């Protein structure tokens, strides 16, 4: 079983090279870089015109939940790209990061406080109660970790949730259109001209 809290050797170049070998496309003028603890992002090395495809991930590289779980519990009964997932995993936040920062890890006192912001019959309150219940019913830390990875980073492609290595390192912006789904790939393009050394962003849609 993989230790989801252990320190990981973070090698962005190796990760990007692996994806390119597997037919992902990454504009050469952008660079995946360390932004802060447990957070990576892209910067542009040169100006890039709008509407250009900047990153493209073929569907075969999208990672369904069962593959990540199999990797983490070292289950060999399912076939998956272990080298890629291993490299990708090294750049993902540790479980401890979620424990420190995620809403679903509030303690009982704080959960009570947050539910008190709502009136008793509030639909949003009910949905939050369900959210906590569902999360707390997950049996293991691995299950909770996988749940949180997909909750915070996954992409919806043909009504299925997938992790899309690389695409999920683009930071959020609320004013752009986000990612695009084609028949055989998922891609991101910039709506605006990217200036040199600019961090760039995807939208939440």
């Amino acid at each position: 079983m993989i230790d989801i809290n252990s320190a990981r050797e973070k090698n962005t170049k190796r990760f990007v090279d692996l994806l390119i070998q597997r037919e992902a496309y990454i504009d050469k003028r952008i660079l995946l870089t360390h932004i802060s603890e447990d957070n990576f992002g892209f910067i542009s090395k040169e100006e890039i015109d709008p509407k250009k495809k900047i990153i493209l991930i073929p569907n075969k590289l999208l990672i369904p939940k069962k593959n990540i779980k199999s990797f983490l519990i070292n289950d060999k009964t399912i076939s998956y790209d272990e080298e890629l997932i291993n490299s990708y995993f090294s750049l993902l936040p540790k479980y401890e990061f979620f424990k420190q920062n995620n809403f679903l890890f509030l303690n009982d006192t704080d959960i009570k406080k947050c539910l008190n912001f709502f009136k008793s019959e509030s639909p949003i309150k009910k949905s939050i109660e369900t959210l906590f219940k569902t999360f707390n019913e997950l049996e293991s830390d691995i299950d909770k970790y996988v749940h949180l990875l997909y909750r915070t980073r996954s992409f919806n492609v043909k009504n299925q949730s997938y992790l899309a290595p690389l695409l999920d390192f683009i930071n959020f912006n609320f004013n752009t259109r986000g990612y695009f789904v084609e028949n055989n790939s998922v891609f991101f393009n910039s709506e605006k001209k990217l200036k040199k050394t600019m961090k760039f962003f995807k939208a939440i849609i």
Partner: protein
Amino acid sequence: MDPIKFYLNYSFYPENYSNLTFYENQIILNVSKDVASKIDTKYWNVKNDQTISNKNPVSFYNCEVPLIISLMFDSLFKNENLKFKAISNFIMLVKNQFNYNDVKLFLENKSGNKILIDFAKSINLYISNLDKILDNLQK
């Protein structure tokens, strides 16, 4: 998506996020049997003869009132004032599900942990977006 959903998904406060979406069956209205029988089923689901709910998601981008709202309510009310009153009443119902004074007091004191503070800020932003939608309905 809306500021609260955003926070619940990603656990960071979406500063300046000014969109708000009501997903299918979130807009629920009680109407007379007569109105329910004439409803445009392209936009509404009808339950129990007198309860209707939105068939499609309705998104308010930048808190602007979308065209679909007008189309949805066209089959309910011929009178524009009644139409916008019904939409406003629904938005007020959504707003009334919060103990807003508790949220404001909590944010003034900021005595909780960061997760709780950011969550309260997201609720505050959600309510502020509802207020902007109400303002835009008046225009």
